[in-house]
């Protein structure tokens, strides 16, 4: 019996820990030594994924809420703490056991700023850039019993910058050297964000497909006669992950909901 096709969002059960407080390697975390919150003194805590490192620290009441009063002043800035302080491990596990002709991808819709993924002891790199998707083919490194251990270390932006004592528009502007959001050094409307929004800040998912995968369809419409005559132009990329020629039937269907569950095709 094949596992169900489609996307499963991984937004529950994540743990996190400051990298400087974890002695284990990514390989160990995802093979022999998976982390746990207990016993007391463990550096691991419940993580806010998707969200930033500060969101996780706030969730665990390890910082005050930076958006209340002047509480942000009591949170150490990355310029003073160093990038290591806001470099965090994230960990979760998921169930996935595909059939031999199925393919599985691990998808990060955005991280900030770079990272490394460890899945069942195998390392993959997440290159720099806050506004890019990462999709890793993990078919061959899934665990045969279906229970998979995933650890991700996320590094902050390369140029987090320093906030001048007088504050100011964009701090010292160093963050602009990276391809990342720039308000995080503070602006005329917000105080600096201490971790510069480091983290797994958008959706993480696992997607299961057959031999052929649909990638980034593009829909465009063109209009004639005062928008009375309209054409829909649809283009898609297709990737054949198998080792044989794929004979495909490609379908497109456009429906509109008339009322309740009644659809017009």
């Amino acid at each position, binding site marked *: 019996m094949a596992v169900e096709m489609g996307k499963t969002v991984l937004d529950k059960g994540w743990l996190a820990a400051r990298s400087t407080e974890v002695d284990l390697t990514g390989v160990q975390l995802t093979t022999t030594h998976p982390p746990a919150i207990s016993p007391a003194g463990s550096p691991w805590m419940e993580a806010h994924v998707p969200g930033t490192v500060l969101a996780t620290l706030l969730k665990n009441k390890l910082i005050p809420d930076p958006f209340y009063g002047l509480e942000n002043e009591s949170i150490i800035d990355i310029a003073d703490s160093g990038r290591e302080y806001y470099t965090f491990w994230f960990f979760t596990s998921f169930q996935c056991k595909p059939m031999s002709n199925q393919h599985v991808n691990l998808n990060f819709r955005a991280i900030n700023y770079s990272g490394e993924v460890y899945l069942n002891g195998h390392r993959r790199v997440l290159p720099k850039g806050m506004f890019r998707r990462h999709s890793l083919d993990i078919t061959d490194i899934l665990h045969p019993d279906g229970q998979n251990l995933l650890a991700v270390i996320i590094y902050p932006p390369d140029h987090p910058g320093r906030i001048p004592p007088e504050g100011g528009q964009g701090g010292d502007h160093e963050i602009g050297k990276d391809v990342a959001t720039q308000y995080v050094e503070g602006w005329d409307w917000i105080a600096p964000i201490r971790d510069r929004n480091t983290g797994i800040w958008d959706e993480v998912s696992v997607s299961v497909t057959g031999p052929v995968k649909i990638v980034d369809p593009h829909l465009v419409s063109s209009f004639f006669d005062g928008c009375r005559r309209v054409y829909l132009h649809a283009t898609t990329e297709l990737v*054949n992950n198998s080792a044989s020629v794929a004979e*495909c039937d490609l379908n497109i269907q*456009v429906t509109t909901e008339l009322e309740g569950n009644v659809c017009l095709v």
Partner: protein
Amino acid sequence: EHLQKEHVSILPGGHVQYTFPEAFFYKPNLWWPNGMGKQSLYNVEISVEVKGFGESDSWSHPFGFRKIESHIDSATGGRLFKVNDQPIFIRGGNWILSDGLLRLSDERYKTDIKFHADMNFNMIRCWGGGLAERPEFYHYCDIYGLLVWQEFWITGDVDGRGDPVSNPDGPLDHDLFMFCARDTVKLLRNHPSLALWVGGNEQVPPDDINTALKNDLKLHPYFQKINETENLTKELS
């Protein structure tokens, strides 16, 4: 006519781009911005079945038929918009992001964006120093009729202004910037609320980035030809 099946062969390990024959609609329900009409959405579903396997993958997306045009008005210097050939008076709000710790839930987006619609806005401008907003943001802009002006990540941090002076030539890695820009366009391009891409906040990006963005985002020659045909038809009529 809105259900098509096409046959495609793909070599082992192959990567192809396939364009369906265009689908014709007569008087479809159009997508309108808030205050001008309904935000009619159709569901477009694409699926691929592989011989000997069955359904291999599927994808679906709410899609709105709308035509958006804009130009700089020579008299005022302002940008004027038309939607579905109708001029629209823009009532917009500036947007950075929903939460500074990026706890960007579906519920939060829904509430934030409905609030903008309830304020009678019809456009949100996503500032270049903030995020390229997420699909959930665009989904609710599709639902509530908020046009989106989306800027890329260029601000006074990257143009040689400021004190201390910022890097005058944008981010250090221009190729990375363009990679992120291209990927972001692919992520968001099917949303009817997406009205305009802008290079950055109140300024022009470095020359090479600006040229690449303009080149990548220009109308495909096929649609350029359609536009010319349509204009010719208008003149004849």
